[in-house]
């Protein structure tokens, strides 16, 4: 086992060398987590918007459940998705288990509640401001929802980012349904876990560094967008 300083040095040179295996892992991570984020937004934003503009019995309960689901443990999601996708499971015929598709599936389930709950909050605040004007204009519920989604787009971008951050950083769900197969389902988090246990600290560290830089980069991008939005009085 090398000392930490040496490991860091090797990790940095790995990152900078643009080694193909390393960037294949990074690429798959991004592909899986971005796909999951897009899917989760497609499902979660309409749910959040609908709940934000609706009043119905049991709404309080729905909110509690939705908030609780935000903290779903990834391994539990992994287990459930595994059961569904395994050969004898209800979705076994899809043959998705141990493919990137299964990982996207699991991460989508993991972050739909995050997107739905956070967007509900954002859109409900916006709706409180717009509701009377909407009623005066006799907008349909559909018109109200699309207007809220569009006018809240910058805030919702942050919601999507929170979902992406959770997806790209989790290891429990993807390892259970993806299996960490080299060149097929190995992503950054599963590779870090594996390489660390094998004692290949430079590779684990290299991936860790890239994961951090990614997180910083995405956050910086969204921050810039938000500042642009604020300048145009969008917040």
């Amino acid at each position: 086992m090398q000392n930490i300083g040496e490991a860091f040095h090797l990790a940095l040179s790995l990152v900078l060398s643009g080694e193909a295996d390393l960037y294949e892992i990074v690429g798959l991570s991004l592909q899986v987590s971005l796909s999951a984020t897009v899917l989760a937004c497609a499902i979660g934003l309409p749910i959040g918007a609908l709940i934000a503009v609706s009043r119905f019995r049991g709404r309080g309960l729905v909110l509690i459940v939705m908030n609780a689901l935000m903290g779903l443990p990834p391994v539990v999601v992994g287990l459930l998705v595994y059961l569904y996708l395994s050969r004898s499971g209800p979705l076994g015929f899809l043959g998705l288990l141990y493919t990137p598709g299964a990982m996207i599936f699991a991460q989508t389930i993991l972050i739909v509640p995050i997107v739905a709950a956070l967007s509900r909050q954002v859109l409900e605040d916006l709706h409180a401001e717009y509701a009377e004007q909407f009623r005066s204009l006799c907008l349909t519920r559909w018109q109200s929802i699309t207007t809220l989604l569009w006018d809240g787009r910058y805030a919702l971008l942050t919601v999507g980012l929170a979902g992406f951050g959770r997806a790209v950083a989790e290891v429990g769900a993807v390892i259970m349904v993806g299996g960490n197969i080299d060149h097929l389902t190995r992503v950054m988090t599963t590779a870090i876990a594996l390489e660390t246990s094998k004692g290949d600290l430079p590779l684990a560290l290299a991936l860790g560094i890239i994961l951090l830089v990614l997180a910083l980069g995405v956050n910086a991008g969204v921050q810039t967008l938000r500042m642009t939005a604020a300048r145009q009085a969008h917040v």
Partner: protein
Amino acid sequence: MSDLPITAVPPVARPRDEAAMSRPLLPLRVSGLRLAADGAALLDGVELSLAPGGCTVIMGPNGAGKSLLLKMLHGLLVPGGGEVSWNGTPAAQATARQALVFQKPVLLRRSVAANLDFVLKARGRDRARRDTLLREVGLLHKARQPARLLSGGEAQRLALARALATDPEVLFLDEPTASLDPASVLVIERIVAAARDRGTRIIFVTHDVGQARRMADEVVFLHRGRVAEHSRADVFFPEPRSQPARDYLAGRIVL
């Protein structure tokens, strides 16, 4: 808004009755209209009849219930009692044929032009009217600017343009010139008068006595959630009959 004691009319209260759709909205009859929150009567048995045509100015001290009354006439709030009847049509089903310029205008987080495009599209109106409307309220040169960066007076003018975009049969205005400079006040008054002359029924809340004199065909004076006086303008201003209105016009404190 579920925590408010005053309940809003659920959205999508659209008129179904075809015959009612083609009937004129006026005359308006309001009887025994009540609204209470936390045991306090905010509107305390409002009785009011409005004939077709012209401009009714609603006056009264702060907190008299003017804004609440407008919202109830417009069908945005559920009455705690009593009735609002627009020539037989309940308020909640008359909303689509009316427009309200709110005391605090709510503008979408879009450009000035896009705010109008939105309403014209949502209500199926001719999009080409946008620039005409903007020119009318003097905002054409600000069309591309984010609406939320408009000054208070400009925002009011955009809100008026948006209200006119829906071709309302009844136009409610809640202190639409409260933050405008004198020249803009006259611009707004001219636009509102033009709408009135085209047959739009105007119901206008203002604290500006000079403006009330210029605009009003009749005045409704609201005091503590009741109609204290309802008189023709040429009667009200020289010789108000009710004590609260006399005090108000004389600049004495009305409580």
